[in-house]
């Protein structure tokens, strides 16, 4: 009998974590679930991170209100063991009166925002740390209403008042404050930024986000899975297809169904096209923030051409309506793919001249170099994902490290940079663009024929489903649980930007001047919509 890598690792994990009660997972044997007492949580997490040969990646932390079922709140901490498909969930039961647990961010800093969000939405307290409001602004009656609890009525009217945000105030002579937003000068999403500066030098920087918080995770409760898919597509515009694919994967992982190969291949092509359009708009934004309109415009033009190709393929510029649970809602003609291939080939030459323009310009390089530096340790602590992480020397790309869509059938080149500045983030994007331009024709060449949709089997209630995608901005995770009426019980979205926003704050603080702040921001180019939800 041949033992796979997964079998060996899961046996190893079972022996490492043998002190904790494991819960049998009938659906997915590669998803290990452990029930952990809140007192021994730190030990369990440290065991997972201690081993040298097991590379653990923190994915997400989800709270659920299961008081009507078993009188408990539950916390789910989900980890991925890299290079295998093994997911580890630590499940913690919390009492319904005064739910609390010892703070995790003390030893795992990446969960800080998760703890604050769970405190806002569920009133679950992380003991031992400060929990300032995150998702709900200061004028929200904190401590009175907890929107994600099941007994909170969705359309409850909450009064709105103007309560100032709290930031570090100028506290020394010569210091002053610069306030930006929430309505910005350019066409971008809302967020309030506050700089504390001395002269031009930035000393303190903080951002107040979550202006576009609409309560999507609350809206989706008690909806059917099809209705949920539409909301998943509308979580974010720029990575609309990544979100809808992650949502589909989450449900498909509950049903454990095999998606037809053609659908997987087409999904991969679409995901890569979305990466192209995202990276090109990022490049355009970086150049325009660096005052280099001469390269910003061709990049924007290039992106528009990609958008028009996407429209030809999917009949929607953001792939909406293409995905369906179990595959795709419609097939795409092979002729359309040939057209795409021909066009991408022509665009590659055009891209070469754009690259020369960006990398060959001393004025732009001068702006980008050493701007917004984020070193390896900082990036690792924050739990940075995507191109930003790869620019700081973290070798992680879930297209290689986790098995989904059709990526395991191809060999891709992955790039890392170690400088961690805005230039490194620009270079990573350029290299990935080349890789994607080469990659899409390869998928088209091997595109199998056949059906594109699989019927869904009976879906088990109260089983966690997880969808993981490496979107253009980094890994995004959808966590989903259905109730026994086949409606959505809880759906949680952790987008790439959610992890990286703390990176922007850190990177802006370090040795930068105020005019560089937009450049640092654009070198990450994060969404607000899928952070705020």
């Amino acid at each position, binding site marked *: 009998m041949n033992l796979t890598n997964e079998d060996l690792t899961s046996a190893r994990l079972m022996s490492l974590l043998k002190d904790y009660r494991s819960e049998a997972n009938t659906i997915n044997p590669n998803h290990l679930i452990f029930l952990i007492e809140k007192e021994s949580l730190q030990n369990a997490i440290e065991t997972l991170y201690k081993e040298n040969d097991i590379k653990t990646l923190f994915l997400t932390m989800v709270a659920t209100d299961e008081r009507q079922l078993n009188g408990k709140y539950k916390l789910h901490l989900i980890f991925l063991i890299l290079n295998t498909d093994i997911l580890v969930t630590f499940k913690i039961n919390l009492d319904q009166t005064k739910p609390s647990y010892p703070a995790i961010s003390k030893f795992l800093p990446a969960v800080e925002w998760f703890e604050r969000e769970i405190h806002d939405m569920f009133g679950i307290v992380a003991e031992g740390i400060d929990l300032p409001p995150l998702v*709900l*602004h200061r004028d*929200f009656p904190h401590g009175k*209403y907890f*929107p994600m609890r099941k007994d*909170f009525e*969705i*359309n*409850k*009217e*909450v009064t*709105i008042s*103007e309560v100032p945000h709290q930031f570090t105030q100028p506290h020394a002579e010569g210091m002053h404050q610069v306030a930006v937003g*929430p*309505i910005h*000068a*350019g*066409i*971008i*999403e*809302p967020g309030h930024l506050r700089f504390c500066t001395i002269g031009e030098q930035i000393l303190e920087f903080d951002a107040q986000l*979550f*202006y*576009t*918080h*609409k*309560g*999507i995770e*609350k*809206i989706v409760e008690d909806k059917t899975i099809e209705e949920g898919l*539409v*909301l998943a597509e*509308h*979580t*974010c*515009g*720029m990575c*609309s297809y990544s979100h809808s694919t992650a949502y589909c994967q989450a449900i498909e992982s509950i049903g454990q169904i095999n998606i037809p190969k053609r659908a997987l291949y087409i999904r991969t092509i679409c995901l890569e096209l979305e990466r192209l359009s995202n990276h090109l*708009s990022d490049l355009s934004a970086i150049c325009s923030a660096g005052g280099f309109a001469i390269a910003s*415009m*061709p990049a*924007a*033009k290039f*992106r*528009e*051409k990609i*958008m028009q190709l996407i429209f030809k393929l999917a009949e929607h*510029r*953001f792939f*909406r309506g293409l995905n369906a649970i179990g595959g795709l809602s419609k097939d795409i003609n092979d002729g359309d793919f040939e057209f795409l291939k021909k066009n991408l080939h022509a665009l590659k030459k055009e891209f070469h001249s754009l690259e020369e323009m960006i990398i060959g310009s001393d004025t732009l390089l001068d702006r980008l170099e050493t701007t917004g530096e984020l070193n390896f340790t900082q990036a690792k602590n924050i739990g940075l994902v995507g191109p930003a992480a790869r620019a700081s020397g973290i070798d992680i790309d879930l297209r290689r490290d986790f098995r989904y869509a059709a990526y395991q059938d191809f060999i891709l080149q992955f790039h890392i940079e170690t400088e961690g500045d805005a230039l490194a983030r620009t270079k990573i994007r350029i290299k990935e663009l080349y890789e994607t331009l080469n990659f899409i024709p390869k998928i088209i060449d091997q595109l199998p024929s056949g059906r594109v949709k699989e019927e869904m089997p009976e879906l088990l209630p109260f089983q966690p489903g997880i969808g993981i995608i490496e979107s253009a901005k980094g890994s995004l995770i959808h966590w989903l649980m259905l109730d026994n009426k086949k409606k959505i019980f809880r759906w949680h979205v952790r987008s790439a930007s959610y992890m990286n926003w703390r990176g922007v704050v850190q990177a802006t603080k370090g040795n930068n001047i105020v005019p560089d702040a937009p450049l640092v921001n654009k070198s990450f180019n994060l*969404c*607000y*919509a899928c952070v705020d939800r």
Partner: protein
Amino acid sequence: MLNILKYCSTKNKEVNDLLLPMINASNIEDVKIELSKIELLDKNVRKALSRSILIRHLDTGSCNAEEAELLALSNPIYDVTRFGIDFTASPRHADVLTVSGPVTRHLKIAMEKTYNAMPSPKIVIALGDGACNGSIYENTYACLGKIDNFLPVNIYIPGNPPTPIQILKGLLLCKYLLNKK
């Protein structure tokens, strides 16, 4: 781009006779116009596209697809500045306010402040389904619904999101409205 010509039509029959074949033509290059009439046509098209407008964009909770499409208008393929349309950083300089997304609780105050900061006459455009009718987002504790519950809307550009061409059509309509106001 031919749709722009529709906004150029006037009460002058002579001009309309020149425009009609161009609007209906499948390929504009096939349309032949007498050289002597070009000047008349040119004058009328210029008049219809006259009056520059400045836009202040406001995201009140959209899914950032509308922003991406609005931003695409500035790229060299659409290049709205050639029609005298441009984006401005301050609402005090703006003639037009484009609003996208259903109004969220956290942005209601900022939205009102932006609107009040604009000089009259002002035009409000609801951009995308979220702003026009609330789209798929239900009213929640944090989401207050469509924009015309809060601001007087002059033009609705529905779409999920509207394409750059659809937005451009709406913006050209603005010029017509501003001429009347």
